[in-house]
């Protein structure tokens, strides 16, 4: 019904703000980032000079870079798995009528609404050795645990991450449970399936694709964890809890080496590129199914 030229003009006019934003905040920074990665660009030196592959070679030989990559991956796998299991279990718990459900459901979502950085500040308060609630409670129970010691820091961070992000996996699991046809459960019940059989033979197989997407989303998100760990430990003790994000941030803004930081950022994206088509397909599939 629309003329082709009218359609084309309208398309460009309507998309102009977005295209302008993409040009200035995507394409231009992309060029800047690549350019920086191939330069010797340090805060301590006045001149920026071409450096070829120097930054990349330095990175590939930097044990700190690889250990931060290893830490990020293991952290992401562990928190994502635990949060999916706990979130889904809680969603199953909420998938029925019970007193005060509405209020409790709202309260379950509160962590989503709290900024990770602010939560980290509160964590430092309640975990403080002298005045914190948690060490106080542990002492009452006769436990002497130093929460920030090398030995327990990983467990501490994983627990904190779960407090923050289980709400997210809970909400998404709950939504996908709600979208399941109720007749399935009825017919399973008529066939005499136990609760356990229903869960493993009906619910989980049907929700498997949704759960996979929730896993993927949470996993990709946890790979870029920065605020929580940076405020809690700054990457320490030593560099034991240094995520890739903290590595890049420190390279640029603590050591003033922009070239190295940009090269590291590019390597991270290159690591993700092989998975992109698969990830895109997952998301598209979900879109078409709906």
């Amino acid at each position, binding site marked *: *019904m629309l003329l082709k030229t009218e*359609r084309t003009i*309208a*398309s*460009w006019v309507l*998309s102009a*703000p*977005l295209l302008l934003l993409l040009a200035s*905040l*995507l394409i231009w*920074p992309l060029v*800047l*980032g690549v350019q*920086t990665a191939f330069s010797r660009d340090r805060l301590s030196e006045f001149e920026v000079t071409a450096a070829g592959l120097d930054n990349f070679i330095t990175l590939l030989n930097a044990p700190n870079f690889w250990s931060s990559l290893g830490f990020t991956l293991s952290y992401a796998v562990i928190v994502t798995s635990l949060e999916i299991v706990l979130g889904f279990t*809680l969603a199953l718990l*909420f998938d*029925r*009528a*019970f007193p005060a459900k509405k209020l409790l459901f709202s*309260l379950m*979502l509160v962590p*989503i*609404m*709290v*900024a*990770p*950085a*602010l*939560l980290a*500040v*509160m*964590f430092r*308060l*309640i975990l403080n050795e*002298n*005045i*914190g609630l948690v060490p106080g409670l542990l002492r009452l129970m006769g436990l002497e645990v130093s929460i920030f010691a090398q030995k327990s820091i990983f467990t501490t961070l994983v627990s904190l991450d779960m*407090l923050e992000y289980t709400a*997210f996996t809970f909400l998404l699991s709950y939504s*996908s449970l709600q979208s399941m046809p109720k007749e399935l459960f009825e017919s399973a019940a008529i066939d005499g399936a136990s609760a356990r059989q229903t869960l493993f033979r009906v619910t989980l197989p049907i929700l498997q694709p*949704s759960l996979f997407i929730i896993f993927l*989303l949470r996993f990709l998100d946890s790979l*870029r964890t*920065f*605020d929580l760990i940076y*405020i809690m430990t700054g990457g320490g003790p030593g560099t034991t809890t240094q995520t*890739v*994000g903290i590595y*890049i941030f420190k390279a640029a803004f603590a050591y003033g080496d*922009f070239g190295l*930081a*940009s090269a590291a950022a*590019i390597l991270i994206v290159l690591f*993700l590129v092989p998975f992109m088509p698969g*990830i*895109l397909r997952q*998301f*598209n599939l*979900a879109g078409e199914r*709906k």
Partner: protein
Amino acid sequence: MKKRSYWVTIIAFFFILIFLTPLLGALYTSLRTDNAILSGPFVWEFDKDLTHFKNALGAAGYDFPSFFRNSLVISCFTVFLTVIVSFPAAYAIVRLGFGGPWLPRLAVALRITPAIFFMVPFYKLFTSYDMIDKPISLILSNTFLNMTLALLLFCDAIREIPIEIEEAARVDGASIGRIVARITFPLIGPGIAAVGVLTFLFSWSDYLFAVVLSSSNATPVTVGAANFVTSYGVRWGDISAAVFLSVLPPLIFATAAQRFLVKGLSAGAVKG
């Protein structure tokens, strides 16, 4: 049957208590006297004057009120700009077939790309245009970060509107611009609400870009609070009050708009 389900309430309440410990802990500390805080976590002595809240709100000379104002300015303008940028483009994609499948695909790919990738380039870009430590640089970066999700949510919302309404307006002689502004925009209210609440939440929560792009004038509460802990490490009462207050605006907003939050997060997750 009804009676049995009380156990669910109890279990759920137990978990919520654990999830909300940090928030409750901060509230608890902020209401106690300095003396009680320093004597240990279980000394019950409450401050009737709410001194810590008064201090956080400016009585003690901290910069907190200005951090608070910055966060509000950054979040509100980010929401505004995100809607302005994403909605017309989403209309062009859905109704006029602009960009084929490529723009949505780009949006998903951008969502997967870690934001840290843009940290150094944004720092250089905004430095060269003298926009560092001004709210505008944070508004632009947050708009960039939230635009992808907004675009996908708007595309969904527009697809749900029956095209017949627009065709009828077309027959009556309305131009495309008029249709977009007067018919489609008002009809996707729920979509705008979802984008609004999520964008507000995410830009209020931003720490990564705030820590890089602001040093004092444009500092929002996230960076302000984190610096507070390191520089005034002993004033726990004031810190708790400040952090508790900082959490409130998004908490109130998102709770009021919970329906849209849930819808937006679920749609964004399931469809990418």
